[in-house]
């Protein structure tokens, strides 16, 4: 318990709707260890994103607690950066300006060096002066990832980060992410509806029930990386997770 990076305890959330009060999350508790990669899988509309927003500090729960490093979550901070499906790379800034956005701007030379370092790490070298409109979807994801890494966050909150990409780019970005995590060792909380994505990358998979969301099952993934999805172990795990989802 004391070792956990993120501790979520008894979180509930309901929204007011035309039909009355709609419970979205009903008593979710989970722990994420430092450096762990946890994937949360659930059917669409089950409240995954709401849970992510609460953990990242963008929304407050009706009941329950979220602590990061033992301190109550008091709102969004650069300690945990969110990367979401549609992205939030600023279209009016160049790639380099985007990467330097989260830095204080008082040490321009160090900031620029840091931005260059991460631009190179995600494969954006030579695109520093480009505007986002000149980049493909995959490149934009890299900008977003690098912009997050530049501020040295301890946690990456990823809300279906690659689901807007085409299938090939999606596979490619998974490997890129794993390669970067090898170097940087972030704690990752990934929300996805793609079971294979979870099986391929995560240390642990939590399956959420349909709304109102509760944690329905937990799978530890003790498989060495790089994983091969067609391997019997991966397929077995995939089947088990899908079965929990009723498929």
């Amino acid at each position: 318990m004391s070792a956990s990076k993120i501790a979520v305890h008894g979180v509930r959330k309901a929204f007011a709707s035309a039909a009355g009060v709609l419970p979205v999350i009903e008593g979710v508790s989970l722990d994420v260890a430092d450096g762990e990669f946890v994937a949360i899988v659930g059917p669409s509309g089950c409240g995954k994103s709401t849970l992510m927003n609460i953990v990242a500090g963008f929304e407050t729960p009706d009941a329950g607690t979220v602590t990061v490093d033992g301190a109550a979550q008091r709102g969004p901070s650069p300690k945990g950066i969110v990367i979401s499906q549609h992205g939030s790379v600023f279209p009016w800034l160049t790639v380099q300006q985007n990467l330097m956005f989260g830095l204080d701007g008082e040490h321009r030379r160090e900031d620029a060096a840091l931005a260059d370092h991460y631009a190179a790490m995600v494969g954006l070298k030579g695109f520093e002066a480009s505007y986002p409109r000149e980049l493909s979807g995959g490149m934009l994801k890299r900008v977003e990832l690098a912009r997050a890494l530049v501020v040295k966050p301890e946690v990456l909150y990823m809300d279906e980060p690659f689901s807007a990409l085409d299938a090939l780019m999606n596979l490619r970005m998974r490997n890129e992410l794993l390669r970067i995590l090898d170097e940087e060792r972030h704690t990752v909380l990934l929300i996805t509806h793609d079971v294979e994505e979870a099986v391929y990358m995560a240390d642990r998979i939590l399956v959420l029930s349909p709304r109102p969301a509760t944690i329905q099952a937990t799978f530890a993934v003790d498989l060495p990386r790089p994983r091969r999805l067609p391997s019997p172990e991966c397929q077995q795990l995939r089947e088990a997770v899908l079965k929990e989802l009723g498929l």
Partner: protein
Amino acid sequence: MADAALAAAALAAMTRRRRIARLASPIAVIALVVALWWLVVVGTESAIFPTPWQVVAGAWELAVDGTLWEHIGASLFRVGTGFALAAAVAIPLGLWMGWFGGAYRALNPIFQMLRPISPIAWIPIAILWFGVGDVSPIFLIFISSVFPMVVQTTSGVHGIERRYLRAAANFGVSRAVLFRRVVIPAVLPEVVVGMRIGIGVAWLVVVAAEMIALRSGLGYLIMDSRNAGNRYDLVIASMVIIGLIGLCLDGATRLLERLPTVRWRYVR
């Protein structure tokens, strides 16, 4: 190498030809209107309505003796001053109203009420307050262009996509950085739209204002030409010049759309 140069030259020639082709049809329409006008005037043997040639000759006469430039300069000065004042007030005010819900709720109703009042309706009040001089038309231009710019800027702030504001909150940037790096650039395209609307209305209004109470400007030139001996050639010359300058003003504000901090909105 030579092949590449040849291909590049051929491409340049093609784009040049295409550009000329694009200009051809509007020029043909203008030529047709002028020809029709000429035919009708000659055909009806009108004593007052001028032919296109008489209009050009009249404009030339004023250009040579210098009065034309004085009138154009007077009108542009009034528009420039009134519009600059309006922008200086409207853009900060619009940002403030867009950002703070309380300011929006308090001020939006009165602006929505003042906005549909034609600036022409303010002429008697302008004369009462500022008399017959440069200040009255500047005031009218201010009144006419300030509201569209406020409204457009406010709606620009309201239209900022939440994901960008959330990203800024996530990175924990200061309020100053939030405004400079996110809010202002996100709103800029809407501000430019507001400026285009504003400058269009301003130009419309200056001519109307000058018709009533002044001794210079293109609006005055129109009224004066009619009153001083039915010089309809000069009336029409002024109208054409007003149209051309309006086109140039719009073109000038359109150039702002090419700024990199504005252009993001117009691609994709």
